[in-house]
């Protein structure tokens, strides 16, 4: 079983993830239409790039936008969730050892306690995000089973990984479950809402270009105050 999930299945999952993300990127960019979107992307590339950059960076900074500041607690949850989600798997020591064994190189690693903090933080944030879906009427009305599924797909590798790493229960079981959960997430990224992994950047860039080129980018002195 271990050979299967770390061998062919892993190759498949990473393959689908990388190719899927690339395809989504290409399709998105090709699907932009200057006349339909009413944004002259090409003739004003510099304004567009400035607008896109401002639009992405402002939103990557915690409390960098009015909207982030308007929801202070949720903003913390969103950032803790996403930082844990992205940093832990990439810099986890265990993953880097695997990387070194398989491909002969590894990335900078974080310590086990750091990984624990990130993982627990991510899971606690997920819990509050879940709670918020129930608690707030304006979020409850938007919520569907799909939102819970996507959240479960994102949290599963962390919960199983944490149990495996700390040898809580059956290590072999949690390890295999962890690997499978990770693969499910990778495969889900191009096909589900998790595609915001890349579409966040593309969509933000698009609206940034819209504001940068058309909606006042050439008149505002300091760019759009997101």
């Amino acid at each position, binding site marked *: 079983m271990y050979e299967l999930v770390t061998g062919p299945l892993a190759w498949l999952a990473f393959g689908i993830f990388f190719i899927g993300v690339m395809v989504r990127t290409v*399709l*998105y*960019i*090709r*699907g*932009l*239409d*200057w*006349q*339909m*979107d*009413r*944004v*002259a992307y*090409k*003739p*004003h590339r510099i304004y567009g790039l400035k607008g896109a950059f401002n*639009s992405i960076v402002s*939103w990557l900074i915690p409390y960098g936008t*009015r*909207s*982030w500041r*308007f*929801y202070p607690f*949720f903003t913390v949850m*969103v950032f803790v969730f996403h930082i844990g989600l992205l940093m832990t798997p990439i810099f986890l020591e265990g993953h880097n050892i695997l990387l070194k064994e398989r491909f002969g190189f590894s990335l900078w690693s974080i310590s086990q306690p750091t990984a624990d903090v990130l993982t627990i933080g991510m899971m606690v944030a997920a819990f509050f995000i879940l709670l918020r*879906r129930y608690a*707030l*009427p*304006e*979020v*409850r*009305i*938007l*919520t*569907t089973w799909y*939102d819970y599924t996507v959240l479960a797909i994102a949290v599963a590798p962390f919960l199983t990984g944490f149990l495996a790493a700390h040898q809580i229960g059956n290590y072999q079981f949690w390890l295999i479950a962890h690997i499978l959960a990770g693969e499910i997430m990778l495969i889900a990224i191009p096909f589900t*809402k998790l*595609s*915001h992994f890349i*579409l*966040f950047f*593309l*969509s*933000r860039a*698009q*609206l*940034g270009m*819209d504001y940068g*080129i*058309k*909606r*006042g980018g*050439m*008149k*505002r*002195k300091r760019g*759009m*105050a*997101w």
Partner: protein
Amino acid sequence: MAQGKLCNREKVDTLEQLQALLNDKGGAQYYKEMQDLDVDTDLLRATLQKTLKEKSRIKAWLEICAHCGMCSDSCFLYLANNKDPEQVPSYKIQSTLGRLYKQKGKVDNAFMQMCMDTAWSKCTCCNRCGMYCPFGIDMGIMFSYLRGLCFQQGFVPWEMKIGSGMHRVYRAQMDVTTEDWVETCEWMAEEYEEDWPGLKIPIEKVGADIMYTVNAREPKHYPEDLAEAAILFHLAGEDWTVPEEGWEETSLAMFAGDWEACKMQVQSVYDAMERLKPKRMVVTECGHAYRATVIEGPYWCGLKTGQPPVESLHYVEWVAEVLRNGKLKIDPAKKIKEPVTLQDSCNYIRNAGLAEYTREIMSYIAEDFREMSPNKDHNFCCGGGGGFNGIGRYRKQRNAGLKVKRDQIIQTGAKLVIAPCHNCWDAIRDLEEVFEVGIRWSFLKPLLVQMVEIPEHLKPQEEEV
């Protein structure tokens, strides 16, 4: 296959059609016919396929929305309606366009009526929500797109059908013919010439520095606005003109989602630019007019630069410029002394970046200028944008929506509101009528005419004696 006599998928291209609609008081028959209007699901599916599925922007927006609800508090209609969850922008668009797309256009009459009611009474296309979404999902843009789908199917409020018909028949939002327009210009010039020696409204002058264009309501209902514009150009010593045709900047067609008529209307202005070859164009104090002709128009007309054929200024840009360069000087004694606030029009502030120009004007004319909060790019819609002011069917909803602006104005402590936009001006007038909070409202022109210093040689004769 039920198509009504008045409520149908036909475009209003003739005077007879337009008259028939106007004769139907309050749209009573029109809305009755709408109950039986069939949905052309094949057309709907094909349009969705071509303009949504094969494109990426709106498709991605509908797909990635994380249902986080961060757009909720950005929407003034959500706030004005006691945080009704059904007013959350994401919910509004997902339950209309989202479902339409998922069901590939296979929807019925009741669904289309719900889409119409949502698109015109629960969104003014102010685009504020787009600024509060982490993914940059602009629901205002999607509602504007949805309006286009509704219009194509004939599910459009009666006044909007008439409005777009007016543009098709008259190239103006109201029944103002070329003759009416020219006569009004001549009348105003004559009327005010005695007080302002040498005052002229030059019509169809080729090669002027400025081509001035207006909102049809001005010649139709407030011709003195035209006279005030003429006085200010006159005092500033501008070389200006108005075109005989192509003088109308507004676009009820844009509010209606009639993209074909949008193009017709804007093209008439661009044709005037070609004909008169002015150095620049100045648009009157109207928000959506500027948005339609200067910001969106180039795209409707297929101009790849996204720019109108001639550099185009909103009136506030022109005013800021002449106050800056001294062509117009404000008499310090006549500056506004009382507390005064300013309405930021979504269409040329958030959606065209002119916030600093209006502040610059305020710095010249007001001694106690009070900002609303939030303001500039983050302002709230006046409550009457996107056609909301003009639709009888949604008057109750419109009036409820005015509360947010009312409270913003009250908070400033100012009793005078400057609203350099026709829709905002109307909404603020109406909010005073509905809530009686004791405020006054004004365009810039009448205030400026009272405040500017008049050069010696332009003073009326009797004063010189």
